């Protein structure tokens, strides 16, 4: 019988009210010294990404957030007891470092949607002789590249905007910029629990300052974006 692993915890001895897990399985705490892993029995190796499974996963991870900050495993992590035990033993100090990093914190998220600009300022002229298909090709590429660079600068500007608004509140961040898309900016922030309200207030102010941008602020979440832990196993090719 295999175990579906939800998240890594510290300082827990029991689970008071864990919700049911994947496929309505009961969730229990697999302890190894001070570390613990929330698990449930799983008959199958491959867990499908369905709404119910994903929500069950999220609910289980979230259920301990009041008492401690867990490190979520990737969705679909199924292991056997022996593997789990060896993993916790071998990786103990690295995992403790990870837990320390997120201790006392939660994750908050900011996303920004921009309107796609159609009116671009004129490009600086290049004085290229207008002959030859090769030259025309490069001139067109130049136009595209300059356009992309402008978008990237805009994206970087948004990063700065958010970072400055949240100065002093962020312990760590994970930012994804997609300059060519409407959903141009998505950031996960690691924030002390006591700072969550201030975080929301600061973002509200920032939203008012930039009415042409559309913001989404969500949280608090368990630190999904700051969990650099995985259960790794040797493949047939011996790579890890």
């Amino acid at each position, binding site marked *: 019988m295999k175990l579906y692993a939800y998240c890594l915890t510290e300082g827990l001895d029991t689970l008071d009210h864990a919700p049911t897990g994947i496929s309505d399985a009961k969730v229990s705490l697999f302890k190894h010294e001070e570390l613990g892993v929330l698990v449930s029995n799983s008959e199958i190796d491959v867990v499908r990404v369905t709404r119910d499974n994903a929500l069950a996963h999220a609910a289980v991870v979230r259920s301990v957030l009041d008492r401690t900050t867990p490190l979520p495993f990737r969705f679909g992590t199924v292991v056997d007891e022996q593997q789990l035990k060896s993993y916790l033993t071998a990786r103990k100090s690295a995992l403790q470092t990870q837990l320390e990093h997120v201790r006392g914190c939660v994750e908050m998220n900011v996303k920004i949607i921009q309107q796609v600009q159609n009116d671009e300022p004129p490009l600086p002229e290049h004085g290229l002789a207008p002959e030859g298909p090769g030259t025309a090709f490069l001139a067109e590429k130049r136009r595209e590249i300059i356009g992309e660079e402008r978008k990237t600068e805009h994206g970087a500007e948004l990063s700065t905007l958010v970072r400055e608004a949240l100065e002093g509140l962020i312990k760590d961040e994970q930012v*994804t910029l997609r300059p060519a898309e409407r959903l141009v900016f998505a950031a996960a922030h690691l924030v002390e*629990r006591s700072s969550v309200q201030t975080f929301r207030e600061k973002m509200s102010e920032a939203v008012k300052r930039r009415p042409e941008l559309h913001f989404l602020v969500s949280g608090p979440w368990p630190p999904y974006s700051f969990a650099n832990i995985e259960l790794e196993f040797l493949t047939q090719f011996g790579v890890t």
Partner: protein
Amino acid sequence: MAFSPENPLSAEPEIETSHVDEFVEQLRCVTDSLPSRINIDAQSVEQGLAKLVLTLIEFIRRLLEKQAVRRMEGGDLSPEQIEELGLALMRLEAKLNELKSQFGLTDEDLNLDLGPIGRLI
């Protein structure tokens, strides 16, 4: 709904936005791009490999284009050299497009999401 001590952290996270529909539309792309099942037939394996290889080549090709434009702007190329360079890159682009269509891949297919690094292309 304001955040308060009475609202425990283990409750559902709050989501604040004035543009629900827009974000729903954008976030749907997250679920759209996930694989639905593992294909083990030879054609999918081949296509998966082709996708990877072509994406890497496409990445390099884009870098070459950028470099060419930079050199062109730098002013150290003669008009003939610019023309040669342009033609070579044109041919490379055409060749890549041929390969893409051979495997039935679009530009979107080659757009591997590298998470924090952002899209490759």
